[in-house]
């Protein structure tokens, strides 16, 4: 299945300060436009509170923009569409389900056939290297393993759009590197389109085809960088790659000015 195309057009958005009913408005997005090609890996970086999560939620159909439009494959996104996979910073695993039952959850909710659920869920677990842990409960797994189960849960429906909201930010440095590496390998085997939010510039440069930097709230696209590193990439090997460090330095300079001003 080819990756989706995503178009964000002139989106402006605000929230009520203390919730939906509050007349005092906080402007969160101020004219954001993004075009993501089929199969592209786009990273979004920006200061905390600049509306990155809000953009993801719009693409996932969880929020409707107040101004402008968001289109996925030319249509308004539908909440819970099976071709969209979400991954959050916290794994959100259900503690009463085994690893495999957690991975099967999206299939159950989309009412997939019973025999497919088991097969697809165990395949996805094997793909993230947790085949042996199918019957373990989340409490028996380490942080890194739990987030891998969550990754398997995201991939199990074979989505053509991946929305990832700081997915590795809660992990320690070593585990994070292992998961980035693993995710890169898995993703490079398929063709899904990725929208990847992170506050880690090094991660964004290592993983993405293109990087957009958001300004402080209200978020605007402040800068954009193509990342011309060859694929397939290995995150660990990039650590010793000169062009990787050069691009990272450029991005950092722009980012620094935005954060400090």
């Amino acid at each position, binding site marked *: 299945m080819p990756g989706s195309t995503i178009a964000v057009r002139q989106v402006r958005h605000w929230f009520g300060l203390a919730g939906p009913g509050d007349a005092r408005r906080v402007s969160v997005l101020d004219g954001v436009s993004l075009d993501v090609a089929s199969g592209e890996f786009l990273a979004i970086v920006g200061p905390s509170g600049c509306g990155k999560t809000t953009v993801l939620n719009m693409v996932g159909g969880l929020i409707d923009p107040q101004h402008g439009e968001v289109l996925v494959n030319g249509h308004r996104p539908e909440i819970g569409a099976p071709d969209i996979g979400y991954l959050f910073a916290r794994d959100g695993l*259900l503690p009463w389900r085994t690893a495999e039952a957690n991975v099967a959850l999206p299939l159950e*909710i989309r009412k997939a056939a019973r025999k497919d659920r088991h097969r697809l869920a165990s395949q996805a677990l094997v793909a993230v290297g947790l085949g042996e842990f199918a019957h373990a409960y*989340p409490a028996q797994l380490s942080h890194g393993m739990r987030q891998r189960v969550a990754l398997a849960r995201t991939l199990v429906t074979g989505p053509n759009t991946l929305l990832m909201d700081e997915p590795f930010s809660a992990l320690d440095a070593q585990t994070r590197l292992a998961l980035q590496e693993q995710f890169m390998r898995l993703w490079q085997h398929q063709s899904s389109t990725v929208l990847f939010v992170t506050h880690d510039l090094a991660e964004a440069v290592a993983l993405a085809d293109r990087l957009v930097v958001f300004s402080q709230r209200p978020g605007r696209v402040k800068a954009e960088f193509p990342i011309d590193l060859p694929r397939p990439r290995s995150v660990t090997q990039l650590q010793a790659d000169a062009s990787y460090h050069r691009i990272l330095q450029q991005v950092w300079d722009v980012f620094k000015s935005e954060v400090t001003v």
Partner: protein
Amino acid sequence: MASDAFQATATQDDSLDLSRSAPNSSPRRQALWRSTATRLGTVLVVVVVCLFWELTARERWMNPIFTGQPVKVLGSLWELIRGNMLWEDVAATVEATLVGVVAASACGIVLAFVLSRLRLVYAVVDPLFVALNSLPRVALAPLFLLWFGIGLESKVFLSASVAFFVVFLNTVAGIDSVDRDHLVLARSLGAGAWQTFRKFVLPSSVPSIFAGLELAMIYGFIGTVTGEMLAGQRGIGVRISYYSGLFRTNHMLAYLFVLMIVTTAIATMLRWVRRRLLRWQSAGVHQMVQ
């Protein structure tokens, strides 16, 4: 192919070794030893207390009318066990409690889930529930006796009135404690209201509901036995107040002993069911303890 490479990282960066919780000899055996020794200690305490008690009665340090006498209590127990009355009484007390608690729990759980969706209605009735729940329900016994007579119904309503609020309030607490991350996940997966309830809210409230059920059973017995002691035809409470009125202390104590066995057995059964249902809760404990 690709998965093989990932297996390597799986065991490398994650430090879980499931074999640690497998039965291996020496720590296991030590634990067994320790639990056997503890139980022997418990038995020893009981034996010592009973010996002292027996002595108190035999030597007339106190009048056995007040204290009873262990050997005679055993005699009464033996006599009662061979008759029919004891069994009918046990059946009557257990039946009233189970009917009351089961019915009240079902109502409590369903009402909690309904009211959690109708927050406005809940806000209206909440103060009434608080007031009713703080009323010592035993004080309702005369009213129930007036309405339903001295048969089964009064006892059932009394135990139900105690059990209902415990289960209701625990279920509400369980529903409110549902993890926000889980609700976000449910929404992002496009789960409908029924799926969100069935797969997210209900399972996460089970521990709390069970805590409520276990309490409700204990409270239910309090309700039933109190009702029986005030007025009744059959039941353990009826016999306790009857024999104490006749100063047949050993018979009364035999009934008390039976009551204790019955309630402990039921509480143990409930705890066993909970452990089976909630195995996932203790799944990580082995790992953390070691």
